[in-house]
């Protein structure tokens, strides 16, 4: 089994992007995460796999700060900051992007307006100048093109009337526009046909596979990992990481199932 870097020599400039230490979280008073620890360095792509009910989506929502997901123990440090002390919008401004398994429909609010306001709110939070309308549209068109999403869709209300595949591609377009440091992608592959899966996978690589960025892919299946090759694969079960390995662990899981690998 491939080694997993748990510590970095203190004299190097730390490339650590995210440190989750002994995280405990509850949903409606029910413990879901029970001592989860994970370190992600800049430049790395990690995949978290696991059976239904393992706590995969809870991990994503807890890191994103969704109301109702209560942290009862442990710590999360993101890019040197205490992530858990930040409000959800502050986490976004700090460079965290959460890709939703079920992107929410917001009737009446156009995608363009929503994304421009979001991006400029993030820029404001970081003390940067807002992006002009023209510059924003150019950026939005580029990113939509990358994900092969018709740029006219960005004029439509957020996710309303989008097919499952369009919603997921639109999530990736949002990621491209917002340009985060760390993307947590919750089952981005669910609901995608083979072609859309390839487009999304290539989009993730184009946007996020850079030395100063990192990705945490939450997935049930190996198939997305054919396009986005992870550096590390972790198995989440019972609210904690029970096994870690390289890309080959995902293949092993695919062949033997969770029960086989965890036995």
């Amino acid at each position, binding site marked *: 089994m491939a080694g997993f870097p748990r510590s970095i020599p203190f004299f190097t400039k730390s490339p650590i992007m995210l440190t989750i230490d002994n995280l405990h979280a509850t949903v409606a008073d029910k413990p879901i995460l029970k001592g989860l620890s994970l370190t992600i360095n800049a430049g790395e792509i990690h995949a978290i796999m696991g059976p239904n009910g393992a706590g995969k989506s809870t991990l994503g929502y807890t890191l994103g700060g969704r109301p109702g997901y209560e942290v009862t123990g442990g710590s999360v440090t993101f890019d040197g900051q205490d992530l858990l002390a930040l409000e959800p919008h502050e986490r976004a401004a700090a460079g965290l992007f959460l890709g939703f398994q079920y992107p929410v429909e917001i009737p009446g609010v156009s995608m363009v307006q929503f994304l421009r306001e979001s991006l400029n*709110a993030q820029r404001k939070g970081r003390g940067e100048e807002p992006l002009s309308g023209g510059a924003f549209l150019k950026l939005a068109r580029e990113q939509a093109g990358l994900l092969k999403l018709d740029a006219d869709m960005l004029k439509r209300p957020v996710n309303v009337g989008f097919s499952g595949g369009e919603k997921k591609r639109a999530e990736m377009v949002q990621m491209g526009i917002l340009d985060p440091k760390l993307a947590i992608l919750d089952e981005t592959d669910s609901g995608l046909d083979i072609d859309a899966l390839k487009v999304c996978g290539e989009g993730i690589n184009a946007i996020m596979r850079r030395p100063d960025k990192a990705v945490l892919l939450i997935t049930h299946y190996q198939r997305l990992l054919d396009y986005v090759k992870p550096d590390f694969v972790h198995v989440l079960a019972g609210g904690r990481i029970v096994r870690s390995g390289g890309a080959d662990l995902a293949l092993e899981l695919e062949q033997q199932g969770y029960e086989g690998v965890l036995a």
Partner: protein
Amino acid sequence: MTALPTRHDEAWRYADFAALATVWPVAQQAIVVDAGESAAHTLVLTGAGTEVRDLAITLGEGAHLSLHVLNAARGYGRVAVRVALARGAQFHFGAAQVAGADHRVEIVTEVVHTAPDAISRQIVRQVMAGRATGNYLGRVVVDRGAVGTDGEQSIRAMLLDRGASANARPELEIYADDVKCAHGCAIGELDKDGLFYLASRGLPPAAAKALMLQAFLAEAFAGADDEERLTTAALAALEDLL
């Protein structure tokens, strides 16, 4: 001088009588749209104190009127509209009420289809915060013989705080056969999943709420001649609440 109405008077059941007394009696404003003509009116109430408007509208045969109202009075704001529609007339009413603090805003409509084939559409959207109250009392009357009537009322309210309230009472009085009258009414709060989704993209809570509420209110002003002016004024009123 006309006596002040009382709470027993159905159209006044939620009124703020102390405020009303300061402006009573209220002069009625008549609007007549002649047969075959089209007209558009806009009413914006955003002042402090008490503002009460009373419109009596007569639409001739085939006449069209589109009436848009923003009631964001900071005190007591009331708009009463009585409309009589002749054969084939069309009345489009789009209204938004926005209030916070302990303000009270209300819209009372009586739309009377007096002859066949007239169309009425009412869309009312309310956003209430603090301890504010928003009321809509809307009666659609279809007179005997007014066959082919097509009437619709869509009433929705968003409550932003626990102390806020909204009263909505769409009412139908139908004395003719072969008519189409629909009404829908909902009172709720902002979708929490939507708010988290917007926050996860970097929008602070107030901005996320403003964006969703702006979209909600926009339904009332869609297609208005001065949609932009109404939207801007509604947004300014929303920003005061958030």
